[in-house]
């Protein structure tokens, strides 16, 4: 049942969550959308978001080959799902994920690949605040996953990581941790995962930050100050100041970034892919890659950039079947991770009447397929004031009833009144109180500017007066209809959230994107 729900939501995600890469930090605006038409000399590449740091390298490749690489960033699982469903055919010319490990578990997707060539590599690692390393008395070269686990259990280490369902770095981290803590000597099995579940539960109690992208994770980490470590690829962690980057001794999973050509493309396109690949593997470009992105070269004659430790690590095998990989993901979402608590502050003012309200209802209804077990969802529709506060929990024993209730409340939404945006936001903070053992956040959907109640300055002052956990609650505003970009960007910046754009893309897409941050 749960697995089915996951599959459905991933399927729904397919076309919606592809987003271009402008800005990955706080205040960045992803633009869900579709790639442009085919153009000779341009490769439309569906790529992992971790590759957004490759801009300068790709500019060099363009100089060398005359081929422009135009990436569209998307989570790995979404990309694989799109490929399997045929949604990549004719829309993209190549695929470039952090790893094709998951892709290989899906025969329908694997059947669409012609060739794949690893371009660079980066292992999963843990980046720990220098001061924390000292406090824990760790010798970075000797740290194991079990030691990390112990520090978490003792309450001496907290960390952030990306959402495994949205980001390959999160997925590879999850598999590394599960493999190491299960004590499995070879590729994980369902039995290994079941056996490791109690330990994994303890381990994920230490996770204080979640994110749909590595960029936002690093920004949120910098802002918070009370999180001790980040789990991510070594290349990402090396870019965050003040971290000691540790590759645990008992093994890691390594991303090898294969540039992948597709059967749905013609021979000329594949020839362009081949030329780009060849150029990426020249010594010159490999040197540039390792110097600029902290990834490791795949050409023996180019040494890794200074600061990348070359001591060997065991490579943990990636699961060999989809049931193990999906099962692990499923238990992470529904069982292992801390649950999320979210208030959806929904503009149902008069201007939403008609098509806009219909779109909101349909997007919210679709979203119910994606809510996790144990998740607490509050709908807070507002006009001139907050109209209603309805809280539902997706109970593991009967997830259907909570979801049905959310759908019923959604269907009952009606549009009238002004737009008391800031007053409603303040109410959302009041409602959430202290977070407890959850990932707590606010989603703000509005189609216009603030026209009633508190003003922007009032909200700034309100936020400045927040203390403790409540200050850590981010607002994820969604641009929709005639809402004001600068007003919403300010709210995102102030609260450490991130702005999502449903003016260019779809409202469903924005809601789905935000899931990675909840």
């Amino acid at each position: 049942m749960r697995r089915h729900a996951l599959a459905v939501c991933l399927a729904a995600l397919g076309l919606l969550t592809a987003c271009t890469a402008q800005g990955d930090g706080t205040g960045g605006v992803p633009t869900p959308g579709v790639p442009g038409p085919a153009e000779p000399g341009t490769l439309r590449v569906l790529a992992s978001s971790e590759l957004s740091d490759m801009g300068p390298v790709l500019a060099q490749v363009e100089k060398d080959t005359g081929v422009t690489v135009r990436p569209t960033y998307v989570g790995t699982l979404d990309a694989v799902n799109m490929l399997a469903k045929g949604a990549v055919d004719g829309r993209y010319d190549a695929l470039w994920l952090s790893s094709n490990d998951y892709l290989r578990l899906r025969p329908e997707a694997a059947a669409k690949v012609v060739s794949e060539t690893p371009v660079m590599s980066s292992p999963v690692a843990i980046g720990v605040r220098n001061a924390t390393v000292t406090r824990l008395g760790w010798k970075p070269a000797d740290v194991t996953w079990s030691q990390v686990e112990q520090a978490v259990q003792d309450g001496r280490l907290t960390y952030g990581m990306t959402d495994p369902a949205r980001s390959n770095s999160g997925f590879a981290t999850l598999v590394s941790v599960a493999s190491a803590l299960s004590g499995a000597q070879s590729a994980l099995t369902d039995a290994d995962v079941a056996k490791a579940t109690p330990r994994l539960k303890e381990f994920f109690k230490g996770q204080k930050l979640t994110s749909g992208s590595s960029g936002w994770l690093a920004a949120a980490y910098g802002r918070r100050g009370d999180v001790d470590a980040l789990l991510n690829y070594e290349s990402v962690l090396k870019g965050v100041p003040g971290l000691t980057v540790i590759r645990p001794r008992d093994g890691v999973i390594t991303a090898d970034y294969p540039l992948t050509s597709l059967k749905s493309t013609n021979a000329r396109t594949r020839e362009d892919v081949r030329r780009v690949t060849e150029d990426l593997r020249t010594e010159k470009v490999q040197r540039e890659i390792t110097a600029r992105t902290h990834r490791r070269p795949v050409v023996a004659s180019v040494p890794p950039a200074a600061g990348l430790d070359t001591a060997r690590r065991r490579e943990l095998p990636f699961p060999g079947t989809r049931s193990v990989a999906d099962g692990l993901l499923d238990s992470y979402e529904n069982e292992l991770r801390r649950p999320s608590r979210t208030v959806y502050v929904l503009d149902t003012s008069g201007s939403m009447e008609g098509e806009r309200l219909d779109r909101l209802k349909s997007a919210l209804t679709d979203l119910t397929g994606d809510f996790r077990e144990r998740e607490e969802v509050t709908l807070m529709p507002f006009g001139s004031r907050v109209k209603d506060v309805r809280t539902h929990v997706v109970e593991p024993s009967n997830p259907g009833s909570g979801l049905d209730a959310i759908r019923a409340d959604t269907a009952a939404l009606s549009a009238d009144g002004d737009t008391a945006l800031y007053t409603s936001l303040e109410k959302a903070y009041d409602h959430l109180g202290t977070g407890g053992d959850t990932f707590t956040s606010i989603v703000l959907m509005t189609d216009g500017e603030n026209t009633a109640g508190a003003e922007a300055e009032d909200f700034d002052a309100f936020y400045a007066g927040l203390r403790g956990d409540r200050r850590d609650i981010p607002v994820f505003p969604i641009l929709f209809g005639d809402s004001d970009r600068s007003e919403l960007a300010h709210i995102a910046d102030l609260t450490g959230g991130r702005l999502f754009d449903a003016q260019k893309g779809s409202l469903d897409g924005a809601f789905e994107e935000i899931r990675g941050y909840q």
Partner: protein
Amino acid sequence: MGIVLAVLLIGGVVAAVVAGRSSEDSGTATKTVRGVIGSEKAEFFEDPDVVKALAAKGWTVRAETSGSWAMEGLDLRGYDFAFPSSQAPAAELAAKYKVRGTLPRPFYSPLVVVAHKSAAEVLAGNGLATLDEGHRGVLKMAAYLDAARADRTWQQLKGAGKYGELTGTLYLSSTDPETSSSGALYLAAASYVANGGKVVASAAEVGRTTPLLHKLVSVQGAQQSSTDAAFRDFVSGAGNPLVLVYESQVASLLADGQHPDDLVVLYPDTTVNSDHTVVPLTENGQALAELLSTDPRLRKLEVRHGFRPQGEATGFASDTSYLQQELTGVRQAPVPTSAVLHELARRARG
């Protein structure tokens, strides 16, 4: 550096060849042949000297790579040849496209295991391998299969404790036997040894050997789909310390001037050759196959890329600290029929 130059030169040569068609330059009419090749031959066809040698005979080759077994799924209309890395997929392609006659096999390359030094030493210290001088040795397949059968871990081997990375189940990494030739050939070699030195043919033999083959594959988890990718990972220091690749890939690396200190080549005492087999789809494809088999200049270049041209015992492997000149002490296991090999692969993965 070498590769940068290569790419520039390829560009230059292709441009020159194309220009030559319409202007004074060359008297030879240039024919372009298009083909699909196994990834391990990509560097050969990209080598500027190979491009030149082909151009001198009036040919330009446009090749794209694919897993050998995956070629069956491609639409090869408009192509002149397919060039998988073993006979079985070639035979299937020949049947599919109604290609008659003996399929040309210009060169071959045995499967070898590349190992990090630490891993090779531990294998040798535990009777699983013998090491020659330098960077060369022999893997004892029967002993290795016994270890695999017993789920032997590195921790259980003497001397592994010194090396932090040597933990977990001992296994050879191979490519996916259902899509890639080298993975299937690994099963061919292993099943031959497991079947008491006889090629697996009957249903009973298939049944008897598959539990072990399944073990060899399932411990690996997700597998790479091409030997090129597997070898790249090894070179970059990621991945399992024991990886099955083609000898030609190592030879090619060495010919490039690379001599990785931390690389030992273990020749399995029972291995399988990959017979790189051309499936000519047009007359031009047939002519190219002919050329690859007979042209002395191309044969020399094949050796440079680590392939062993058919019918030529000497002159191979200049770098004998890593490679064997002649394959002494290495038994060639015959490959089961295509149907049996498919069945073994399917059951090993399933």
